[in-house]
């Protein structure tokens, strides 16, 4: 009754509500899904109901739960709603904010029953995650330095500058056993020490490598977008430890929000005296510039990245000399990935031992993954090293999409490898992944179901790398092109005897003899699929059969007359008019016209039994 009255006269009777904050995620996925409009709508609605003083609406840090974008959390209740539409705004305010009731249909994830209010960390997607890099998830406004500071931000810097010698900072990172998150896993503390001790020149530089280019990976992007100050603070700490005077953030131009926020964060830090001359009253000076990359994948390789910063064309050069000896403009340079930098402040603040207590024997701490592909909950996750693939895919990811059978997981981006479903209990760390023939890479995790053709997958990645090869060294430039040609031939059903062996021989040469990391890891998708799915290659080459029914040249669509009810759905769906037949009679598919687009196969599902009326042979 009371609530009803409120509805009628919202202006007169101001609802008594406990003060709440509505955090609306402002990551790329959520912005795309309309979180900006949501924010405006919430503000307007709250004003209308005179609740603006009690209920705050704030743009929040990326939640990583892109699958249900746009996402918002209501604090202090710890309730997370996903797939929120503009039409839900009124409902959320009336029922939840005023009425204190949870809107079950908007809860994420929707599956487990929510008996009562639960903290965010206990929701399925979030339960097994441990947040170090994404520590401010959903809690801060990425564009507010005050928010970052209020959540222990720049405390580590203050501690380092006032209480610690640069060597002590390095020792702390060494004690944490932090390893490079860009993929190779080189010990960060050791890298810093080498650069600090380098005598090549007095001027030293540090670089934040944000040239993330793996298809399906968005870790660095999301970190820069949702917590840019974590990266800035990490870089200042690194500069202090190494003795660097200037830092560069190398970001892709195609990441507009990341660029805007990192530039904004640097400016804000400068205004607060956290960058520039005499940081926090000490005699340590350091500043950061942002360099916009043009989107070449190879520029993620450190020597190519440095060439690009210097204004030269992004081609790798041989190492040694390593950047720690001769980097940017011949000066010692330390390059770390975005995620590595973001790990530094908590290590300094809480101590290396705390950090080293998380993870496995040789891989410490957590790792951020972008969980994508055929998985229910796609998004950005952070888990302790050593978490098994099963936990990642089934507990956090909610399982394979449409409950299909898992076939493989591709880790490490295009130059990573495919790990078969049989190794699902593999603990994810640097050593285990490399033993399985893949790499940690920067953290892409692509889930593949039984409808995936592994030869086609290998071809996709080899083609990507062929296009991104800089063309300097022979094995990568010529070898990848030839590998792609062989793979093209195999998926087109023109594979010849000896092709698999030639592909294998080529892959080994490219891996062994290439100049830089791009070439040296490029054959991984081929080598790992050959290792675990050789039978699929053989089926393509010798029996001209694609077991996953993906390769168009190797499949035939036809109507099964006994099952076809003659509903004409496929007739309407066929873009080339290859299917004909009167209503209620089995249709006819003209093979000479069929372009194998699969549209008929997709639409034929009006009934479970007749679902495969048009089937793939």
């Amino acid at each position, binding site marked *: 009754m009371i609530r009803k009255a409120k509805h009628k006269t919202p202006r007169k009777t101001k609802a008594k509500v406990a003060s709440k904050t509505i955090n609306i995620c402002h990551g790329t996925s959520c912005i795309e899904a309309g979180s900006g409009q949501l924010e405006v709508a919430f503000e307007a609605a709250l004003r209308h109901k005179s609740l603006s003083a009690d209920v705050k609406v704030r743009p929040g840090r990326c939640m990583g739960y892109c699958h249900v974008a746009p996402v918002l959390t209501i604090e202090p209740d710890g309730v997370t709603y996903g797939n929120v539409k503009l039409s839900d705004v009124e409902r959320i305010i009336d029922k939840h904010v005023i009425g204190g009731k949870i809107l079950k249909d908007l809860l994420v994830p929707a599956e487990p029953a929510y008996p009562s209010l639960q903290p965010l960390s206990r929701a399925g997607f979030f339960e097994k995650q441990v947040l170090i890099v994404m520590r401010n998830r959903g809690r801060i406004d990425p564009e507010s330095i005050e928010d970052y500071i209020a959540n222990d931000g720049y405390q580590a810097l203050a501690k380092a500058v006032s209480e610690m010698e640069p060597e002590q900072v390095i020792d702390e990172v060494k004690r944490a056993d932090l390893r490079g998150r860009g993929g190779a896993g080189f010990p960060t503390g050791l890298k810093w020490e080498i650069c600090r001790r380098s005598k090549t020149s007095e001027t030293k530089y540090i670089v934040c490598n944000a040239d993330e280019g793996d298809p399906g990976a968005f870790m660095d992007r999301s970190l820069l977008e949702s917590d840019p100050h974590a990266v800035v603070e990490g870089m200042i700490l690194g500069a202090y430890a190494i003795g660097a005077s200037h830092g560069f953030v190398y970001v892709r131009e195609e990441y507009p929000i990341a660029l805007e926020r990192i530039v904004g964060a640097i400016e804000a830090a400068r205004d607060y005296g956290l960058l520039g001359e005499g940081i926090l009253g000490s005699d340590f000076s350091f500043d950061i510039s942002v360099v916009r990359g043009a989107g*070449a994948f*190879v520029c993620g390789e450190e020597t190519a990245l440095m060439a690009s910063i210097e204004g030269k*064309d992004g*081609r790798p*050069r*041989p190492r*040694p000399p390593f950047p720690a000896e001769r980097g940017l403009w011949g000066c010692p340079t330390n390059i770390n990935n975005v995620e590595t930098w973001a790990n530094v402040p908590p290590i300094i603040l809480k101590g290396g031992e705390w950090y080293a207590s998380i993870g496995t024997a040789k891989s410490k701490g957590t790792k951020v993954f972008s969980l994508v592909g055929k998985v229910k909950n796609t998004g950005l996750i952070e888990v302790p090293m050593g978490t098994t693939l099963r936990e990642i895919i089934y507990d956090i990811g909610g399982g394979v999409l449409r409950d299909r059978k898992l076939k493989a997981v591709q880790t490490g981006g295009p130059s990573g490898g495919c790990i078969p479903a049989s190794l699902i209990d593999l603990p994810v760390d640097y050593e285990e992944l490399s033993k399985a023939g893949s790499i940690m890479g920067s953290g892409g995790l692509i889930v593949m179901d039984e409808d995936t053709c592994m030869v086609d997958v290998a071809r996709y990645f080899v083609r990507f790398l*062929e*296009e*991104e*090869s*800089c*063309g*300097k*060294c*022979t*094995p990568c*430039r*010529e*070898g*990848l*092109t*030839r590998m792609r*040609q062989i793979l093209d031939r195999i998926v087109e059903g023109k594979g010849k005897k*000896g092709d698999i062996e*030639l592909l294998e*021989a*080529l892959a*080994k*040469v490219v891996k*062994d*003899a*290439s*100049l830089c990391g791009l070439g040296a890891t490029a054959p991984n998708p081929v080598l790992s699929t050959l290792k675990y799915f050789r039978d699929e290659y053989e089926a393509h080459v010798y029996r001209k059969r694609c077991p996953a029914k993906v390769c168009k040249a190797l499949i035939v669509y036809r109507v099964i007359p006994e099952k076809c009810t003659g509903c004409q759905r496929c007739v309407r769906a066929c873009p080339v008019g290859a299917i004909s037949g009167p209503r209620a009679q089995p249709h006819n598919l003209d093979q000479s016209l069929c372009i194998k687009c699969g549209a008929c196969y997709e639409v034929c599902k009006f009934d479970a039994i007749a679902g495969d009326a048009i089937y793939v042979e």
Partner: protein
Amino acid sequence: MKREDSMRITIDGRRRRAERGQTILEVAREAGIEIPTLCYHEALTPWGACRLCVVETSMGGRTRIVASCVTPAEDGMVVRTDTDRIRDIRKMIITLLLARCPGIEILKSYARQFGIKRIPFEKGSEDCFLCGMCVRACSEIVGVGAIDFAYRGVKTDVEPPFGVTSSACIGCGTCTTICPARTLTLEKVFARRTMHCKKEEIVGRCTICESYYSGV
């Protein structure tokens, strides 16, 4: 020779002294051990791109495959230049380059030397295998930089900037002399030098009097 500047390395079982900063290739050549190269030239900065000069090195139990032209010798390093693995790599590299440019003599002679009988790839018709000697010679020796690499990946090419006849080229002909594939040519036509990088005329002409910068 000061003691700290001298190192001991073993190449194909032979113990050699090496100076600090010397590459494996230099030490090997001093020892009379032949390592095939395509993009290496004594007068130019090593480029490390053709990968024909790969060797196997062992240091502290770790075996690596490196390009000998750019890898400095290290004390205690054990180098092997002629293992099965190295031979396979070299054969494949020549096979790949020969598939790209079937007509180039230096590649054909390496193919004969390595016993390559069959090219299992579709043959191309390129006449440049991108060793980059012309590019380095033009910028490092002549100091002009009239030509450079353009595009990337398999489409990489050597061109004057934007593919336009360069006003920087002085027509000295260094690029044509150094080119191991004899792709760059120098012609004497109507008492003036014209240089061609493939079909591109690269020598410059004065924009005012329209005469070529380089004389006869």
